[in-house]
């Protein structure tokens, strides 16, 4: 909806807010679709590299047991896996992109609030972003 003339807010601020809404909406949609395409590509590559996964039942048990599975979890491991064209690392990259999508949305919101000169919300948004970064550190510490 275009901003109406009798709207109480000044039209340029309303227009700015609208631009931000469109940007955030596009970012979320592109992020989800792109990361899931990467995930699917990784699964396909994995099955191409491991033809035995189609008929052997050996590996499946591992997926449902409580042991900590041996998949790449650090940037170094993922980067090495990607260089070797390993399907597993491609899947993990896609999943990380998916997790990063809302984080990126928060980061963009900081600039949006700066653009609207809304300093209280700049601070609020930075706090949320800080909590999100803490989550990876906390996971490492308790893992």
């Amino acid at each position, binding site marked *: *909806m275009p901003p*109406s003339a009798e709207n109480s807010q000044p039209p340029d601020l309303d227009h700015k807010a609208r631009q*931000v*809404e*469109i940007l*955030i*909406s596009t970012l*979320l*949609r592109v*992020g*989800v679709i792109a990361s*899931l395409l990467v*995930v*699917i590509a*990784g*699964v396909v590559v*994995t*099955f191409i590299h491991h033809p035995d*996964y*189609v*008929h*052997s*039942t050996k*590996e*499946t048990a591992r*997926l*449902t047991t*409580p042991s*900590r*599975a041996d*998949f790449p*979890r650090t940037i170094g491991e993922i980067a090495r896996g990607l260089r070797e064209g390993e399907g597993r690392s491609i*899947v*993990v990259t896609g*999943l990380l992109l*998916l*997790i*990063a*999508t*809302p984080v990126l*949305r*928060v980061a963009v*919101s900081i600039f949006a609030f700066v653009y609207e000169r*809304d300093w*209280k*919300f700049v601070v*609020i*948004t930075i706090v*949320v972003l800080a*909590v*999100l970064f*803490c*989550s*990876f*550190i*906390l*996971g*490492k510490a*308790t*893992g």
Partner: protein
Amino acid sequence: MTPLLFTLSLFGISIAAGVLGSLLGLGGGIIVIPALTLIFHVDMRFAIGASIVSVIATSSGAAAAYVRERMTNLRVAMFLEIATTLGALTGAYLSAELAGRWLYVIFGVILAYSALQMFRKRQEKAGENVPASALADRLKLHASYYDQSSDREIAYRVTHVPLGFALMYIAGLVSGLLGIGSGSLKVPAMDLAMRLPIKVSTATSNFMIGVTAAASAGVYFARGDIDPFIAAPVAAGVLVGATLGSLLLGRLKNHIIRTVFVIVLLWISGQMLWKGLHFHAAIR
């Protein structure tokens, strides 16, 4: 079962969970976790890890549409996300400390609550003598949204911000603990406590779910609970299912069918409780 069959089965069951979740307005996570643990005997931690990723996918997809339709209150969402993300961190941390069977028990309780919540009469109270709130004024949380059915802009005022904030911390905690979106806790916090219009509450809740889930997903990923070969088919399946559900069928209105589903969900909740309370040795 071969890995290929396992992947395809998870994909299939996740599509079904996504369709059902979107029909009932519950979200896919709360349905996919019992499916993974009770049918496929996936470890609860891996099920939670896979579910939280699927929650990010579906909520971000839905949020994109709601934001475009100007249904979301971005300022309320941003402010309350401080509470939900802190809650999610607490929940994700606690889930590693709790014995697995307690996760089944808590899950059973939350599932039963969410199912019964579907009977809640959602009366529109927004706008009717909303108490003044200095904090809401200072943060400029009051807003308006475009209502399609009446073709006009509807202004509303926000109140009880500290109460909403506290409830959101609990909603975030449950989300982080169980790997679900916990929209059934977020929406009442906004429409009952903070007096946002129902449509705005639903849209804003959906918008916040993605960020809340990202906070606990970070913990789960770093801890190694997000197994790529469980999370991949589940995330893709739930998203496909939720999209199909919203495109083809819309929200389920029929009271009898809803009642049947509520009974099924209560039965599943009983199964989760039973598993949590009885199989001490089998579950870590």
